[in-house]
């Protein structure tokens, strides 16, 4: 059953998107999408798979939607559906396939009128085809809480009439970053879990990559979509080497690079090239380029730090943020030595966004440690410990503290 469900996962997103657009209501679209898939699971093993499975699902789902709206006139009026009969008369599509309206759904799920925390949940639910319990697990919240959030988000779409549409070319530059942000935030939670027993949650990272692949297929010419996909592939390629046998943190400098996924790196590098070609580079493309430079180094010491610092300089001009400045300072420390890096880090001390951001305290601790300023290093490690997220990150800091203590004696 699970395998059959998996086959339907991709189809479910397409079906849902087409129905949501037609009826303007995600609830109705979800309901009849599920019913159509259930019907297929019952009928196809008996009657055989129809020659046009997508068309069969669509016709079945639409018929169920029309029935539902006939039964419930008040609901129909609320949705202001005027074209039900015309819709039924519409013939099959020439290609026989489903229309792909998932791009519309991406923009609806990431609409700025929705609460930021609901956008990712809705995108995972509608476009990655995750069930509500799976989405709840993804965000580490109870199922009931997630169910409530999804209901709230769908009600918001219906009540405020957030449209199912792709923004016009002139609005696209303002709206696309919101969609990319939703996908990237799913990925970053997968890359470094904000809490819990695991450092990384590869299932989430893979869902984000899957979403980016779908989006890249729908918008092949949008270079930041390409850049985001490249970035995630090039970072995710290191996933097997980032944790030790006990799930503990393995830093980039200690990773066994033979365990990096060469196929993902090859694919990511090709995508970076097209993301950087044909105009000014966007922030995802530049971050992907940085990831590519790391991936291309045969070992840590031969990393091209001048190149990485130069890319961070570009990134700081197009997308300035204290976190980027922190990463640049760390790269400078490897290029010019810990003292220079530390001076840069200290110049960021007043940034409110870095105050509770444990990578900042950890980066300072590391440089102070290397400069043999042990009491200050200890204080910085302890500060990092106060804000670190997942258990393996905390264990890692405890180990560094222990190492420092043994050096001190």
């Amino acid at each position: 059953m699970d395998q059959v469900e998996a086959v339907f996962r991709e189809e479910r997103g397409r079906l849902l998107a087409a129905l949501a657009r037609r009826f303007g209501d995600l609830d109705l679209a979800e309901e009849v999408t599920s019913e159509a898939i259930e019907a297929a699971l019952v009928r196809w093993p008996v009657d055989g798979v129809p020659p046009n499975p997508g068309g069969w699902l669509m016709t079945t789902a639409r018929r169920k939607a029309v029935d539902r709206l006939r039964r419930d006139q008040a609901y129909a009026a609320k949705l202001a559906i005027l074209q039900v009969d015309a819709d039924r008369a519409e013939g099959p599509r020439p290609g026989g396939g489903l229309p792909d309206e998932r791009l519309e759904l991406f923009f609806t799920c990431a609409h700025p009128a929705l609460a930021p925390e609901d956008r990712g949940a809705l995108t995972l639910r509608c476009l990655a085809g995750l069930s509500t319990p799976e989405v709840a697990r993804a965000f580490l919240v109870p199922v009931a809480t997630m169910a409530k959030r999804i209901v709230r988000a769908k009600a918001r779409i219906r009540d405020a009439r957030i449209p199912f549409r792709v923004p016009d070319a002139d609005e696209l530059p303002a709206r696309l970053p919101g969609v990319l942000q939703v996908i990237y935030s799913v990925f970053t939670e997968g890359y470094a879990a904000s809490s819990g027993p695991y450092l990384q949650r590869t299932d989430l990272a893979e869902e984000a990559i899957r979403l980016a692949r779908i989006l890249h297929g729908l918008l092949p010419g949008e270079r930041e979509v390409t850049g985001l996909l490249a970035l995630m592939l090039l970072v995710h390629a290191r996933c097997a080497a980032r944790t030790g046998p006990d799930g503990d943190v393995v830093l980039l400098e200690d990773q066994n690079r033979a365990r990096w996924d060469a196929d993902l790196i090859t694919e990511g590098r090709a995508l970076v090239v097209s993301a950087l070609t044909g105009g000014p580079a966007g922030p995802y493309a530049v971050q992907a380029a940085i990831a590519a430079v790391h991936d291309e180094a045969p070992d840590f010491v031969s990393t091209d730090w001048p190149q990485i610092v130069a890319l961070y300089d570009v990134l700081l001009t197009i997308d300035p943020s204290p976190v980027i400045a922190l990463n640049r300072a760390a790269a400078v420390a490897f290029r010019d030595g810990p003292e220079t890096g530390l001076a840069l880090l200290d110049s960021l001390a007043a940034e409110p966004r870095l105050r509770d951001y444990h990578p900042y305290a950890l980066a300072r601790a590391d440089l102070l440690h290397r400069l043999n300023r042990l009491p200050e290093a200890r204080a910085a490690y302890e500060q990092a410990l106060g804000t670190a997220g997942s258990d393996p990150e905390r264990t890692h800091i405890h180990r560094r503290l222990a190492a420092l203590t043994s050096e001190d004696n």
Partner: protein
Amino acid sequence: MKYLLLINAGELDPSGGAVGCEPEDWMRFDKEITEAGVVVASESLADLVTATRVQVANDGSRTVTDGPFAETREVLGGFYVIDVPDLDVALDWAAKCPGSRAGGSVVVRPIADFAGA
């Protein structure tokens, strides 16, 4: 679908007017939105600071106080009710409205439709 556009002034000048809003901008905007045929109603408040709040307690006693401005930085200056196909169109009109500039904001809220009930 009807939406209420609540126009809030960001900053007040010493005479109680909104900072950075030119009458010509408002006239141009009002002409454009009216000619688009989407306006259901619109009013501009007489001034930004005169307001009287009325509350009736459980015992029926009435309390009348001077405006609600002490705790809020943004003050309501006027509104439009527009009838447009969806939220994105309403947001576009809000963005065109001069009230959304110079520290002001336009809050867009959907209006209930009881026609189908």
